[in-house]
């Protein structure tokens, strides 16, 4: 309860602010509508009408909640109208990109830690890669991958997700693999340990706390990447596409529902990574 209470307090505050903002933003439309019909509305009438519009500027929480619930449960999860189905498609791309990002990040980190040349030549480019706005890059990756004859919609999305998620893993793993101190390295030397043994027995286990910290950032980045990969026009699949369609066809409720579905997905993914970390910490002898 002690941990839940502060979170709930903040949540209540956000919901209250959200309701206030929805009244304020949607009021204009209510007054315009009334003026057109030649009737006048009282303040309380206005407030009621802001809460149930079909195309509100800012839908209030209960409308978003209802739309989200409808999207999740009102049809079979295999239907293309189901947010579960779209969410799964986004999840698929996120996980593929996440895996690719981990492989790339860890692989590069090992190369950088063991080779000065790679450190000097690759590291600056890794940093530069993150300064390029992904929204500019995403359409190019999608076009290029279709030009190269890749029909799968998954591949370009996964590449974009990997592009964003490899970097935190890279930075975390470099720090982690370099974390053993001089004494620990000397100790291995007194045992005449080989380079591979040094890596497997000392450097890799030492890097685990850094690895898991970076995974939490990387999984969120991968999700953002997958969603951005669904945004370029023409896409019909995934939560990103749902958001885009919602905004293009003037269905703000669709957009908000998809947005919250994505937030839900992000929460679940981070929770899973957190659990994995706890399991790993337990296996590695941590107290809690």
């Amino acid at each position, binding site marked *: 309860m002690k941990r839940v209470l502060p979170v709930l307090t903040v949540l209540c505050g956000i919901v209250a602010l959200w309701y206030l903002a929805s009244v304020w933003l949607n009021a204009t439309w209510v007054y315009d509508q009334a003026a057109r019909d030649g009737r006048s509305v009282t303040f309380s009438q206005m407030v009621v009408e802001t809460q149930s519009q079909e195309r509100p500027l800012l839908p209030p929480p209960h409308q978003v909640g209802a739309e989200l619930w409808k999207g999740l449960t009102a049809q079979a999860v295999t239907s293309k109208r189901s947010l579960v189905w779209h969410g799964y498609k986004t999840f698929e791309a996120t996980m593929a990109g996440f895996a690719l990002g981990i492989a790339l990040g860890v692989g590069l980190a090992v190369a950088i830690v063991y080779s000065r040349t790679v450190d000097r030549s690759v590291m600056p480019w890794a940093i530069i890669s993150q300064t390029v706005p992904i929204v500019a890059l995403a359409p190019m990756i999608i076009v290029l991958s279709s030009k190269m004859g890749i029909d799968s919609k998954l591949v370009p999305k996964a590449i974009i997700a990997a592009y964003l998620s490899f970097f935190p893993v890279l930075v975390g793993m470099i720090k982690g693999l370099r974390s053993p101190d001089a004494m*620990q390295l000397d*100790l291995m030397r007194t*045992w*005449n340990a080989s380079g591979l043994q040094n890596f497997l027995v000392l450097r890799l286990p030492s890097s685990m706390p850094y690895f898991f910290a970076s995974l939490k950032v990387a999984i969120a980045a991968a999700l953002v990447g997958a969603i951005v990969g669904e945004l370029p026009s023409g896409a019909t699949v995934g939560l990103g596409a749902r958001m885009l369609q919602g905004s293009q066809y003037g269905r703000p409720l669709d957009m908000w529902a998809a947005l919250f579905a994505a937030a839900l997905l992000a929460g679940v993914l981070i929770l899973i990574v957190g659990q994995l970390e706890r399991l790993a910490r337990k296996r590695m*002898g*941590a107290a809690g």
Partner: protein
Amino acid sequence: MKDEVTPMSRVIEARDLNLVFQTADGPVQALKDVNLTINRGDFVSFIGPSGCGKTTFLRCIAALEHPTGGRLTVNGMTPDQARMARAYGYVFQAAGLYPWRTIAGNIRLPLEIMGFSKADQEERVARVLDLVELSGFGKKFPWQLSGGMQQRASIARALAFDADILLMDEPFGALDEIVRDRLNEEVLKLWARTGKTVAFVTHSIPEAVYLSTKIVVMSPRPGRISDVIDSPLPRERPLEIRDSREFIEIAHRVREGLRAGHGDEL
């Protein structure tokens, strides 16, 4: 018992050993003309102020540093060859146990690296745990043990692969006086039971006198040996021996040696 000094019994031999570190502030003479012979079964303490080269000399024996002049042999080999032949176990000031491995897992680590068979590993871990009186703690993780117990585990780790030389670099420097006394007693017992040759770096005069058959007093800038004292104390040493006249005399000589080496700095 060390009447017959044959070449075989000379475990560590340093002749005119020099080591110059190149630093940003210019060269630093860490060791200057060090001559020393350590015989099989000796317990040799190195004592001196910081910067006297005692740790550096120990690291040279372990081939963690490389002398820039002179000759150093360990078991008749170069230090590097000796390291590869697993001639020594090294105990650092910090226990340096891997937090993600149990105590037994930590002691098993050098055995795994050196490729001992599984059965042999288990047998050795049990034996050295018993030797340092940590039987029953094998499944614990390092954080569950006190500092003294962790250091005992690190000694067990250094003993596990049967090197006949034990190099100890201020192993009890971070522990309190009471724990240190107990561990000193235990190290002596260990030494008596295993017959190892021990090189022991310390800051503490009582510790050096209590433990050693030979005390090497060193002084700084440049790091050199200023006195070598062969202890007349018997090998069997109860803690009370520290109140004996001989003990106090040796301690006095060590203190004098340290003071002389320090020159005008005191």
